[in-house]
């Protein structure tokens, strides 16, 4: 019943795949600020969880209890472009609907939507949820050889808090921080970490940048 016609797009598909893999390599090189040859093969990911409390599936490292979870915590392993930790910094983040007040039209929020850190700094995040429902503080785009799926993630249940630590690489970059519960990022729970000079602002961050697609009033 499956018609052969679905394979018609094969040649285009292949080309797009080739193109994407090239641009993929390229963007990875940008993200790590390194030439192509230093990008780690995918196979080195996912082998670093022997000492962790619990494995979170798909190679992720997870600490989980009734309060919530911390995923891919990293207190000790240096990104390979860092010789040492440049500074230890602690950021205290509060999350909840009460922080949406100052940005009309949003419903969820963090008390701050931007953090500035030095390259190679070790960041300890104390994430404090002021709502009665679940929220997340999730960073994307970290090097995958240290952080499965390039992600560091704290999730806490209502009125709970959790602390986790991770180390950023040396490159000047702007990392996305958000809550990935459906519509929480869109409705205000979006922030950024600027490492060094950063790399511009991400769009639609409350108080910082405009959305790509604005509402029509």
């Amino acid at each position, binding site marked *: 019943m499956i018609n052969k016609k679905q394979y018609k797009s094969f040649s285009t598909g292949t080309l797009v795949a080739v193109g994407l893999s090239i641009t993929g390599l390229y963007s990875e090189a940008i993200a790590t600020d390194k030439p192509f*040859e230093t990008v780690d093969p995918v196979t080195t990911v996912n082998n670093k969880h022997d000492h962790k409390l619990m494995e979170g599936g798909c190679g992720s490292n997870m600490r989980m209890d009734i309060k919530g979870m911390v995923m891919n915590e990293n207190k000790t392993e240096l990104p390979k472009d860092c010789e040492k930790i440049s500074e230890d910094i602690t950021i205290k983040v509060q999350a909840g609907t009460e922080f949406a007040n100052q940005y009309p039209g949003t419903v969820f929020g963090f008390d701050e939507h931007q953090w500035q850190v030095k390259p190679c700094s070790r960041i300890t995040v104390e994430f404090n949820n002021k709502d009665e429902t679940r929220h997340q503080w999730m960073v994307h785009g970290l090097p995958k050889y240290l952080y499965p799926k390039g992600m560091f993630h704290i999730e806490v249940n209502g009125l709970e808090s959790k602390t986790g630590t991770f180390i950023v690489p040396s490159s000047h970059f702007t990392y996305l921080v958000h809550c*990935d519960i*459906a519509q929480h990022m869109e409705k205000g729970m979006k922030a950024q970490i600027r490492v060094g000079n950063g790399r511009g602002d991400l*769009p639609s961050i409350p108080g910082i940048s405009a959305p*790509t697609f604005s509402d029509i009033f």
Partner: protein
Amino acid sequence: MDRCKLIFHICTLLLICSHSFAYQQTAKTEDSFLGLVEPFCPKTVIPEWRDTHKIENITIAPSPICNPDNPYNIAAFVKGTNNISMATMMSTQLSADTLVKTNDIDGDGDPDEIHIRLEVIELNGFSPDLKDPVTTYNIAPGIQPGFWAFAPKSRGMSNESFASTKANPLLRLPSPSIRVEQGDKIIITLENSHYFPHSIHFHGVDHPFQKANGDGNDGVPQTSNKLTMPGKLVSYELTPRQTGTMVYHCHVQAHTHILMGLIGMFIVEENRPNNWLQTFNVGAGFVRHSSQAVKEQYSQEYDLQYQDIDRELHNLIQQGNDSRLLAKAFNRNYNITERTPDYFILNGRSFPYTLRESLIVIKPEEKIKLRVFNAGDQQLALHTHGFKPTATHFDGIKLRPEAQIQRDVFTLGPAQRVDLELYAHNDGLNNMGAGIWTYHDHNELGVTTDGIYPGGHISSVVFDSFLGPEGMPKLQGVDVSPFFTKEFYQKKYPVWNLSDDNRLYGNVAETAANITAKEQNSIAFDSNQIIILILQIFLLLITIYFLRKHSKKSDD
């Protein structure tokens, strides 16, 4: 240096390869209207999930359909997230406190205090950063109306991954069926994870108006409860004395919130010893772990939830992001008196996706229980080919034996339920023999998708002798490929095309003469060609770059 050379050679090779692929323009026949045909069964389905499983000492019945429920979820739903191993937990995306089962009060071998946590999720909602909706959920090829649904409290991302905007499989329609045991102490907590206020009303379920502490327990803003605002939670408590197929739904702005998807089945099962229930049936459909009372009479049990969708309502969440504008759009601009439904879903999908998830697979002489629920706003006229089922319960209440009638069309108004007995006894009355017997809405509006037939409320009862690999029925009618394309429901495809050898019913506009005329009048840009061209230019630039670098270094 060597590395540079290598990259240069790779680029050259790619450039040559790409050239051989280039400019293979698709033939301009009528068939070219048929876009990408999705496979009957997606490759992402895990085939092993169809087998019988024994997880956490719970037996999970086989489910031979294309897309079965995750058996690890079933084990968690039966045992409770507090009574399973971490390994099982990690095979689900549930939170540690999604479902806590404790306290065997009557000492009959099953837990009698059940804590259930639900969240409210939005599917196919707006993104201020992307052109397309996010946390996506397709009801049919290419069709993504906005929805709200209750979901078991989950952990981690709502999207499948950072690279994908697809909803994780726990987040879907319909809101999950919930099963509890008669006499159990049930505490249901709604964690309002959505940006609008919501509530839960237990429709037809035995529950007190107030909780012991005097707080409201009926979920109705006008009479019993304050609004549960975003980021807040509310708990409801009930100890149902009566059994039956009942309903739960949001009662805030009920004229839109129910229709947006905040409605599901709430089933109170008869009390039996050692009766470990599958508390959630995500996506409704086949119940892989039925209650003791159901097993006494039936070999299988299915939940069938029917809904209808007015695109104008569901698309509101895709048109803006500002919570004030959204509230105005839902509460003041949308006019339900002008409502006309466009899509019809059975267990969250329209035909042909219903064939992946809502097939009823039966053997001769089997007796199956169907719980049918009309959660839409239109009348449902459910007709079964090849069977005359017997109604055993209306709105959850058991009918006297003489009132248990057999029909071939059962009509349900909004919110009504009927429990049916489907008996594969080939006597010409109960059943007419083996086959692939379709069951569908006989309200003809209900068997379309945006006015295109076949779509909507259509699925099939399939005898096991007619079931092929991957849960695909051994169909012997027309080629169903067109139904698995977006283009079919975008009205681009001549419906009889694949049977139409003599081209009696093709598109008039696409005759050879027309094509030639069009080509003469306009410069045709083929999107494939443009992509190929861009890629080639890109490769060329890289090649030139490395060539230069290489030659510079050679000069040095």
